[in-house]
């Protein structure tokens, strides 16, 4: 019950802080940019439009959710509302997970909203699969943003850490491919660097395998690939939630 109240408060704050309007503006800008670029294209104009709109909306959704979570938590800390909440007879895990549930729900609603324009270029089933993937990706981003906002002192460092985690998660496969390419030399330094990259990849979410634009352009992958990519997102989001609760337990009231 307390978790539901905290989740509702997070949703209410998102609505009052104007997230809906910013999301609507981001959607309009993405559609307008896609339409403009499609005018310049001499072929594949519909595919180009779908690719540009989908990738822009995905990036906007991630940025919006991360900044919303970080700004909301920082406001709570600066207004000393968090101190008051910690004095309440509520388990800390309930308090943390309640907030996370609210932000995650916010991400799920945003994913559904951002998937709507894509129905113009792809089949409803494909768009639904893309939206589910984006929703889970935003749950993961909410968990990461909440973790960094609670554990780092400044909102700038929290946003930077969150962006770093996200961008590395999306670029890691390409980095591994470059490090292990046939033209790479076999020196000790290079082998060490390659192993370091492989080790780092183990600690990062495989964000390049989810919410893929190619699903909208060329069709869905097989069910096994799709569910395995989404399963990996759930595991990483759960890990971030546990790490966040762990850190929150140590917080001085």
């Amino acid at each position: 019950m307390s978790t539901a109240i905290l989740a509702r408060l997070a949703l209410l704050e998102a609505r009052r802080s104007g997230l809906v309007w910013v999301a609507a503006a981001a959607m309009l800008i993405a559609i307008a940019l896609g339409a403009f670029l499609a005018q310049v294209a001499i072929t594949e104009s519909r595919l180009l439009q779908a690719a540009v709109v989908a990738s822009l909306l995905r990036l906007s959704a991630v940025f919006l959710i991360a900044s919303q979570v970080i700004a909301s938590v920082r406001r709570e800390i600066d207004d000393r509302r968090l101190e008051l909440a910690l004095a309440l007879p509520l388990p800390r895990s309930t308090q943390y997970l309640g907030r996370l549930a609210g932000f995650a729900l916010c991400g799920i609603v945003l994913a559904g909203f951002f998937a709507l324009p894509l129905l113009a270029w792809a089949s409803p089933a494909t768009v639904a699969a893309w939206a589910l993937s984006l929703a889970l990706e935003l749950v993961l981003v909410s968990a990461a943003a909440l973790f960094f906002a609670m554990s780092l002192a400044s909102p700038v460092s929290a946003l930077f850490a969150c962006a770093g985690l996200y961008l590395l998660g999306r670029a890691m496969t390409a980095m591994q491919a470059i490090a292990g390419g046939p033209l790479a030399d076999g020196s000790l330094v290079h082998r060490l660097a390659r192993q370091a990259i492989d080790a780092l990849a183990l600690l990062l979410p495989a964000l390049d395998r989810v919410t893929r634009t190619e699903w909208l352009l060329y069709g869905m992958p097989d069910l096994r690939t799709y569910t395995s990519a989404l399963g990996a997102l759930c595991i990483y989001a759960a890990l971030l939630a546990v790490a966040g609760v762990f850190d929150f337990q140590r917080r001085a009231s």
Partner: protein
Amino acid sequence: MSSDERPLADVPPSMWFALAIGLAVQMAWRGASPPVAPEAQDLPSPPNVSSLKLAALGEPEALARLNMLYLQAYDYSGTNSIPYARLDYARLVAWLDAILGLDPRSEYPLFAAARVYAENPDPARTRVALEFVYRQFFADPDRRWSSLAHAALIAKHRLKDLVLARRYAAAIDRYTRSPDVPLWARQMEVFILEDMNELEAARILLGGMLASGTIKDPAEAQFLARRLKELEERSGRR
């Protein structure tokens, strides 16, 4: 307006004036320096496919298409009366190669090579673009045959190189397997040998593609119709 803001009327007139002047100067400055169209010699060497994949951040399909738009802008406008006449075609083909590496299922690079860059008045440049289409055809014949079919027409009618045109047409016949490839495309070698002019051949090719549903994109249909009209006007003048 929230309660901690003062009404606009409280702003001193000097501030309104300064704001208006600032805005006017900005607009005048920007208006006086229109954007410069990129020129042929400005086209840099392409980054390798791995770097492009890294920069794509998991969105290679979107980046591939944006790169095509970026490439299209080179040496097309400005003071150049013949589009792409000064473009370094070796560099251009390297770009098209990299973009195709980024999204191998995109037909944009091959379409542009066959329909835009190959239609250059310089035969040497045309051959570079056609060879690119021919080379890339083998990676995915069932998807890329339509660009090679157009390349065969260019080879016959623009380059007057019947041997090259037959080589392209024979490749379509020999390497395509999909039932989606229409029969007329497989039999292209026959109408390459027939004595028909460029306009007739282009009409057959375009009509066949429209009838078989190969052209689905509205921009592509518009572009091809425009090209056909230009060809008709050119033939009418002769």
